[in-house]
């Protein structure tokens, strides 16, 4: 009888310890893979007609030449779009976005940023995001949506001209697409650095606990 109770408790505690459910982990790493392919091939495409006075080093681009980079970009885009749509649909349907990412308050973000910079931010409960995490994760989801929409506008400025018009036409969409990329890359740098500083968060994203 007691054995049954113990194993029941164990099961409950094991379940409670799952920080990142399997679907989140699968979608997260698929997204990471697709994003890296998109960014590296995107840099090669950017190099063909740079918007600014710099180009990306060939060593960090994908595709070898413009044609190859376009093939990678337009192949990985399907992976990114399908993965992203599943993520948005499940995140909204299960209420995960609402539970995990809301509310975000300016006061909370400021106090948590101060706590983070002074090393006082608690990481005991990884299932609850602090205000800085909430802001970053919600922000990168919005950037993700914007980069896909601006990308579609660049890809089909005639067929999707009303979408392109939202970004200030074809040329505007190119700048939006670029700045969203820059934002996502900046996010990734901070995200990876923080994950390395708190290794158990990385573990949770790999094995769930």
């Amino acid at each position, binding site marked *: 009888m007691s054995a049954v109770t113990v194993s029941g408790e164990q099961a409950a505690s094991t379940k409670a310890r799952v920080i990142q459910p399997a679907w989140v982990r699968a979608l997260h790493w698929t997204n990471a893979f697709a994003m890296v392919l998109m960014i590296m091939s995107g840099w090669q495409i*950017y190099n063909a007609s740079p918007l600014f006075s710099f180009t990306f080093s060939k060593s960090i681009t994908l595709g070898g030449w413009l044609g190859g980079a376009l093939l990678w970009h*337009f*192949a990985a885009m399907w992976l990114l779009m399908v993965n992203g749509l599943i993520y948005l649909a499940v995140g909204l349907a299960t209420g995960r976005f609402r539970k995990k990412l809301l509310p975000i308050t300016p006061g909370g973000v400021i106090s948590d940023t101060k706590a983070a910079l002074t090393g006082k931010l608690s990481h005991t409960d990884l299932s609850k995001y602090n205000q800085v995490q909430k802001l970053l994760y919600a922000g990168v989801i919005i950037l993700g949506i914007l980069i896909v929409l601006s990308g579609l506008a660049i890809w*089909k400025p005639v067929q999707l001209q009303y979408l392109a018009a939202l970004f200030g036409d*074809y040329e505007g969409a190119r700048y939006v697409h670029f700045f969203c990329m820059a934002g996502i890359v900046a996010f990734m740098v901070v995200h990876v650095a923080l994950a390395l500083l708190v290794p158990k968060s990385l573990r949770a994203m790999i094995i769930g606990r």
Partner: protein
Amino acid sequence: MGRMRNLLIPGVDKTLLVRDAVKTMPDLTRRRFIAGGASLGALTLLTGCDVTDQFSADEMLKRVSKFNDGVQALMFNPNAMAPTFPESAITKPFPFNAYYDLDDAPTVDGKTWKLEVRGLVENKKSWTLDELYQLPQVKQVTRHICVEGWSAIGSWTGTPLRDFLKVIGADTRAKYVWFQCADKDGYNSPLDMPTALHAQTQMTFKFGDEILPRAYGFPMKIRVPTKLGFKNPKYVMSMEVTNDYKGGFWEDQGYNSFSGS
């Protein structure tokens, strides 16, 4: 890889060769042989890359690109017009763009040039420039978008291609209109029929109200505002209405063939 292929005896089916080689091995080894990453290399040697080719990124990318051709054809709305602009928006100077210098651009003699018409058309007569100039012309100020990402707005005047296809009695159920150009490497490009029949797809004879300059494709350019720039052939010598996919100068090197905008 190519050298490896040459080492094989012609006429030997490589797939069968591997199957026979695998059969001679004991079960356990066979399983390891197929599963092992290192052995994939050995398999490659045996088959001259056929096995790896099937799983190669190149092959995957080509297939997705072909799939994307289909998706873009489905997305193509024949009634959607490319945005038009006021004359004040025209890019000056409009860029010369080619994979060669302007000095190497084809010089076509307009007096002797004739547009050759081939394939699935009723009237295969060739057209002189003077004859083409007699056809009704329209002007459009539209944006040229290069596959590289830059864009420029130009003023193009000429005959809608669909009107000309009607005049020559083209079978518009055919899949492509294939253009060949005077460029030294024999530039060519296929245009899918729905795009060829789009109201803005034009046989262009004038740029900015003047006879098309050599830089922009004298004597005739095909202006397709619903496609990327490389699908706008210049220095056109002939057109062929056909059901065969005949490839193109850039398409063969890996640019997506539909490349709609």
